[in-house]
């Protein structure tokens, strides 16, 4: 325990932090310049800008410290940490799917299955190094994207059901199986949820150089290897997201019906 604490505290005495602080100072001067300009232009944004800047700095340093702690713990803890992130992701997804029956269970199973399968497979295959330093940040990226895709799928599915209620019930009234009646809407939800990932795959490299690749290049990696690894990350995000939204749509497609195969009420709030 002592060594863990020492290791953690060492991070704060690392001389690189001094360099970091100097860089923050330069960036802060630039930012302050913008705040000052906005004041001169009478934008009355300066308070909000200043607060946002300070808040951003505090949050990101807090996050860095937490990651610092995480890097000192044992490898097995990465499983616990990732599971915690999946629970958090479920919680956030739940708000999107609010009004859909069984949304929490469905989101949890889908996110754990989709992102878990990809993380485990890629770790076993060696594409993610089996260390906390690699597993936690890469895993969190995969989970965060799975969450976003899951939210999009649920949101779209919910509005599909709400706007096609008459059609779905007309199908049920013919004695058709609920899964067949709903399959068109399940597909629409999955497709809609994957559009953003597909678009970023398409624009990869020419519209944007994504964070991981930029970071690796900054850290002195071979740019071609950085590019290849960035693609690996994108492919993992795509795979995990696809698995997640397919799982959640299929499961939610069962939860929206009663045992007697009646379409349950799906509450839609005014904002969607």
């Amino acid at each position, binding site marked *: 325990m002592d060594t863990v604490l020492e290791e953690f505290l060492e991070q704060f005495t690392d001389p690189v932090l001094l360099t970091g602080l100097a860089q923050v100072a330069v960036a802060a001067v630039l930012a302050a310049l913008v705040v000052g300009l906005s004041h001169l232009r009478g934008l009355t944004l300066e308070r909000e800008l200043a607060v946002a800047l300070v808040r951003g700095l505090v949050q990101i340093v807090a996050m860095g410290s937490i990651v610092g702690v995480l890097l000192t713990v044992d490898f097995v803890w990465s499983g616990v940490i990732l599971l915690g992130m999946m629970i958090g992701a479920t919680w956030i997804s739940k708000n999107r799917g609010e009004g859909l029956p069984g949304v929490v269970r469905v989101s949890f199973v889908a996110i754990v299955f989709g992102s878990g399968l990809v993380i485990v497979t890629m770790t076993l295959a060696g594409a993610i190094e089996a260390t906390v330093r690699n597993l936690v940040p890469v895993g969190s990226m995969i989970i965060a994207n799975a969450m976003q895709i899951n939210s999009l799928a649920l949101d779209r599915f919910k509005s599909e059901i709400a706007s096609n209620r*008459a*059609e779905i*019930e*007309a*199908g*049920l*009234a*013919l*004695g*058709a*199986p609920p899964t*067949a*009646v709903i399959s068109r809407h399940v597909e629409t939800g999955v497709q809609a949820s994957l559009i953003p990932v597909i678009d970023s795959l398409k624009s990869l490299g020419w519209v944007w150089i994504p964070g991981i690749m930029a970071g690796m290049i900054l850290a002195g990696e071979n740019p071609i290897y950085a590019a290849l690894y960035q693609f690996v990350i994108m492919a993992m995000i795509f795979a995990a997201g696809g698995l997640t939204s397919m799982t959640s749509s299929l499961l939610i497609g069962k939860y929206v019906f*009663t045992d*007697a*195969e*009646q*379409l349950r009420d799906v509450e839609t709030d005014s904002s969607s």
Partner: protein
Amino acid sequence: MTPTPKLETRNLGRVVDGDRLLEDVSVSIPESTVLVVVGPSGAGKSSFLRLLNRLDEPTEGTVLLEGEDYRNLPPRDLRKRVGLVPQDPALVPGTVFENVARGPLLRDESIDETHLPELLERLGLTGYEDRDVEELSGGEKQRVAIARTLLNDPDVLLLDEPTSHLDSKAEERVEALLVDLIRELDLTVVMVTHDEDQARRIGDHVLILRDDRVDRVGPVEEVLA
């Protein structure tokens, strides 16, 4: 002993989240008769038909199909036997054929090559198979919806205001088709209408609903005299 009615409701009712949709409806529909359901808007007529097809679950009482509690039947079998033509035809984007055959298509069953053309002919839809349903008139859409339900060969046909959204010419046409169908196919029917004259022309028995309850029930010639 009177024969078992084709369809019978016993104290049928439904309450959703404290809102009452229907209360204590007991009525029997003998084989090959037409029960018309009339009443003001919001009286519970559609709610009643949805309960008969078990699209909604009764919270009180039940429905008997040929004497058997319908909750003991698999819902899909029940819905094939007690077919509902909903108030809104709710056709799916596509052709007339895809809509009329929607039941077997969704159930992944083969389509009866003689039954379907015969039904299209009865409903004046011969030659319409490949037409896009978007292009159909209201009356044509309603006829597609009726054919879609009849393709299942239901024992009981439930019709929810089949002519209410139509102009008077289309209304006459659909009503005439229904009268012929009911007679020729010897159907047992429950039909909702807000038109008392139509109720007199088509119905054998009438059920008047008011404020979610039975107001009157009996032979058309007595109740709607």
